């Protein structure tokens, strides 16, 4: 909009003498000026600052001074970090395949259904529109022992023993993961549906004329042609599970990440290091490690899926 000002300031002067191409360049940079300023101040500068803070001993009270790789050394020698590292990957390793398998099966059959198609699709999609922090409380209530918790009540009515869920170090992580998978399913179903619809009908017709069975059509036509969709969803949902926080924080507010840190993901560790212990430098090192993990996982997945 600076270009507009120039235009008005010199109606018959400079502006009319420069070429159309030059005007275009001025307009372009005029449009980009404010956004670029934003990206420099709010994105690029903080990125460098995060790397810098990770090699300082900054706490909120004391100014930062350079300590080299001390924070990283401390982190890699911290048993809590390795526990958290393991948890974070458990969310990924369980969450991504389970959610993609369910959503693909749902989308595959939903694609052929006409009767009440958009109603059924809406049932699967609704949880995607919910607030994770709110839903964590609903699930937390579900997981309570009898007579409060719905799940244990149902189990009891079938004569199945009570499950501790959030109170058990082995069951808590899957129990925290369930609402995350549940909430993300609708999005994945919609994306799979869009991918399935992008496959030309003629391919199916030709396959059927050739006498291919449904299973063969799925393996040889549907799945290969769905690969771009699959790559997108694998990378997208993996990043989501590696960054899980809202559900974990809300489902156990007495001891976030508990019991005994068995559900604590890296983002929660970062939050607690920064805003409970105020060890900002140490927390910054953890954010850099998170960045590295996300980067490596995304690149590995893209590489693996492109080759196949």
């Amino acid at each position, binding site marked *: 909009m600076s270009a507009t000002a120039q235009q008005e300031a010199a109606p018959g002067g400079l502006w009319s003498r420069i070429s159309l191409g030059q005007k275009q*360049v001025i307009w372009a940079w005029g449009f980009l000026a404010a956004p670029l300023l934003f990206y420099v101040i709010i994105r*690029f500068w903080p990125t460098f600052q995060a790397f810098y803070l990770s090699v300082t001993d900054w706490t909120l009270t004391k100014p930062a001074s350079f300590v080299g790789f001390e924070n990283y050394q401390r982190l890699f020698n911290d048993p809590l970090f390795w526990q958290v590292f393991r948890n974070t990957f458990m969310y990924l390793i369980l969450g991504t395949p389970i959610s993609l398998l369910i959503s693909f099966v749902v989308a595959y059959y939903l694609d052929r259904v006409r009767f009440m198609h958009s109603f059924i699709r*809406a049932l699967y999609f609704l949880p995607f529109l919910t*607030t994770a922090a*709110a839903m964590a409380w609903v699930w937390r209530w579900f997981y309570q022992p009898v007579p409060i918790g719905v799940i244990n009540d149902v189990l009891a009515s079938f004569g199945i023993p009570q499950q501790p869920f959030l109170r058990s170090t082995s069951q808590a992580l899957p129990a925290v993961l369930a609402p995350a998978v549940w909430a993300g399913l609708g999005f994945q179903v919609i994306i799979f549906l869009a991918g399935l619809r992008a496959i030309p009908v003629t391919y199916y017709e030709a396959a059927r004329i050739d006498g291919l069975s449904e299973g063969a059509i799925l393996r040889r036509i549907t799945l290969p042609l769905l690969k771009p969709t699959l790559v997108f969803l694998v990378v997208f949902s993996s990043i989501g599970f590696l960054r899980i926080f809202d559900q974990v924080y809300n489902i156990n507010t007495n001891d976030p990440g508990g019991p005994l840190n068995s559900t604590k993901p890296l983002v929660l560790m970062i939050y607690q290091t920064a805003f409970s212990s105020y060890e900002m430098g140490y927390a910054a090192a953890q954010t850099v490690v998170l960045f590295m993990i996300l980067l490596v996982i995304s690149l590995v997945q893209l590489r693996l899926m492109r080759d196949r």
Partner: protein
Amino acid sequence: MRADAPSQALPMSRIKPGRIVAWTLLFIGGVIMVTPLLFMLSTSLKDASQVYDLRVIPEAPTLDNYIEILSDGRFTRWFVNSTIIAIIVTLSNVFFDSLVGYTLAKFRFRGRYIVFIAILSTLMIPTEMLVLPWYLMASQFGWVDSYWGIMFPGMMTAFGTFLMKQFFEGVPDDFLEAARIDGLNEFTIWWKIAMPLVTPALSALAIFTFLGNWTAFFWPLIVTTSAELYTLPVGLSSFAVEQSIQWEKIMTGASIATLPTLVVFLFLQRYIVRGVMLAGLKG
């Protein structure tokens, strides 16, 4: 985009038993998906004595929980905070992301590619890594506990810019040339000619931005300290902690936080589903 028509892959002209089984299983799965929402709503309509009665239709439905929680004033405040913040951030993204996306798609100038790559590269940086510098920035400039403090990190996004660039590339140059010959300035050409041609993408971007900010928890939790400035998710979280085991109150709060998006969806299902498909495929 056949967003609402099932695919033609397998016409259902013949009703086979297998189809009926598949439909029934899909339907049951769908009902299971909304069960948590039904229980949440149902419990919010029960009084404390009925909470342990797990029937989905309450015996004596009451709005007392809603009246009590809303008359307390805090939820109204958080609701207003969330709404204002989500609307402003959405407007900002719709404006700036499409302006930048348009510039990168339709102008030829030196440095265009570098600008594009630079903006795109910010997609690789997770928010969590920027949160500490943002917090530092917010406390230095006195933005902690303010709308601006909650909003500033999301005023523009690389995702939105990339999405809009993709769509503006599909706008024919002839349209823009014709407007240029008519003597329109570049800003008017973008706003009056190009923008109306990409409304599906704009609504997709608006839906995603609004939903993302409405449900956002991590950053608002960090940057707000006084209850007046909480957003709905952060407020609900603090409210639920203080209610401890009064589940009917917590479910009422959760319903207040969740219902608006669900109601909007019921009216705009077609557009929202199409928007998600567009953003997912092109984004």
